[in-house]
């Protein structure tokens, strides 16, 4: 090979190489022009509830969530009761995303004929991006519940505010991977009229986790531990196991729990069932979301 051919082929190769490189350069050029993506984790849990407990999630702006939460009777109540299927308690809820960070909701439970209303706001959001990362999301949740069972108790009838009960929670959650999310939530339940020898305030810590077995199905655990000072007999800690199935605008949650109540005021301090006795309530939550406001960015 003489020098000229050598140089010519070298030249050809370098141009060919340059052209290849140019294509990649074009793309990396475009990448550097791109707006910075804040890298918020889109969702930590599939639903606004782990199973019984509220999850860190709030609704999107303009989304109305119609929730049906249903619990059958005790599994160990025998064949006469068709293993609990003869009985049912239910909570119907309407919840709405005022903004992407603020959700409000109202509900009515058949258990003790209770009305509840809640406010929930996302204070911090987990971020994973090169420009900035934050390890967890933080949501503040508060609700109020009123038991409207008729009673002969003169004291209760004289002052309705005795029936008011409140729950406050700070929910800290992190999505560790595509497959695993975890949250921990300190809970305060305040009861205006406490049972004899019991404090008006009950403290507990909720722990919940989701294991995504596929994109649409996750296996969830929801546990509430009452701090030692609040462990009044005969109540126990609430433990629920369940499965989330997500199909577009619906989330179905199948649940087995030792709590009959569906709101914090009941399942945190007043869970009566014992897993070891088979005092289990089978049930489900159905969440259907309606988009009431069209996205203005379209």
């Amino acid at each position, binding site marked *: 090979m003489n*020098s*000229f051919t050598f*140089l*010519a082929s070298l*030249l050809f190769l*370098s*141009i060919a190489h*340059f*052209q290849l490189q*140019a*294509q990649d350069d*074009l*793309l990396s*050029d*475009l*990448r550097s*022009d*791109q*707006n910075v*993506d804040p890298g918020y984790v*889109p*969702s930590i849990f599939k639903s606004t509830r782990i199973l019984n407990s509220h999850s860190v999630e709030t609704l*999107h*702006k*303009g*989304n109305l969530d119609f929730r049906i939460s249903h619990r059958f009777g005790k599994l160990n109540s025998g064949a006469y009761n068709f293993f609990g299927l003869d009985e049912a308690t239910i909570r119907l809820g309407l919840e709405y995303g005022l903004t*992407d960070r603020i959700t409000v909701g109202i509900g009515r439970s058949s258990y003790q004929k209770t009305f509840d209303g809640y406010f929930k706001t996302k204070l911090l959001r987990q971020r994973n991006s090169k420009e900035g990362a934050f390890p967890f999301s933080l949501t503040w949740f508060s609700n109020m519940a009123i038991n409207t069972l008729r009673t002969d108790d003169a004291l209760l009838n004289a002052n309705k505010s005795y029936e008011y009960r409140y729950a406050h929670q700070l929910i800290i959650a992190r999505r560790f991977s*595509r497959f695993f999310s975890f949250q921990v939530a300190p809970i305060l339940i305040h009861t205006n009229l406490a049972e004899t020898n019991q404090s008006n305030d009950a403290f507990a810590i909720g722990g919940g986790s989701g294991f995504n077995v596929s*994109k*649409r199905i996750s296996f969830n655990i929801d546990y509430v531990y009452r701090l030692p000072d609040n462990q009044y007999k005969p109540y126990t800690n609430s433990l629920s196991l369940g499965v989330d199935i997500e*199909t*577009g*605008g619906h989330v179905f949650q199948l649940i087995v729990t030792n709590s009959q109540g569906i709101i914090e005021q009941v399942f945190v301090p007043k869970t009566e069932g014992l897993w070891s006795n088979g005092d289990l309530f089978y049930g489900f939550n159905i969440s259907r*979301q309606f*988009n009431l406001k*069209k*996205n203005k*960015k*379209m």
Partner: protein
Amino acid sequence: MVPWIINTSVFKLITILVAGFVICAPAFCQVYKGKNGKVKFFSEAPLENIEAVSNEANSVFKATTGAVAVLIPIRSFVFDKTLMRDHFNETYMESNKYPEATFVGKLEGGIPENVAEDKVVTVSGKLNLHGIIQEQNIQVTLKTDANGFLNVTGKFRIRLIDHKIKIPRIVFKNIAETVEVSFELKLKQTE
């Protein structure tokens, strides 16, 4: 051997060529760039029609070589229903794994001389979507407007299965197998 090279015209030729590529004098290398281009996709299915828009498509076009590149962040697509965006990113596009869609291609036959009027040309290249690269030949319309922008518009179809975007049976009637993508890019000549 070195002195021999310096004395030949081959060296001069190389110098000119290399300088031409590296320095890229304005006259040599007309580069058009576009930010915030609009890309829309439309899925027509028995139960619902789904439409999403991104206004964050960045594009570049080199008139000398005819090279074209377009980049769209997947998360920039917005939907009518906000919940759809979550599902789009998490379930279908897996945007944490594949954060962007790119197209790298070439304008067939070079840029037409006069694009004051609508000119239809073909751009062929590779579409990288959901981590899968597919060849696409796209008919595009070029037109320069009064403000000196090069407007590039067109549409093409994507078969979701070609890019391994899976639709579960349960929402089969909600999502089409083929979606139509249309785009409006505005490019400005840079120096």
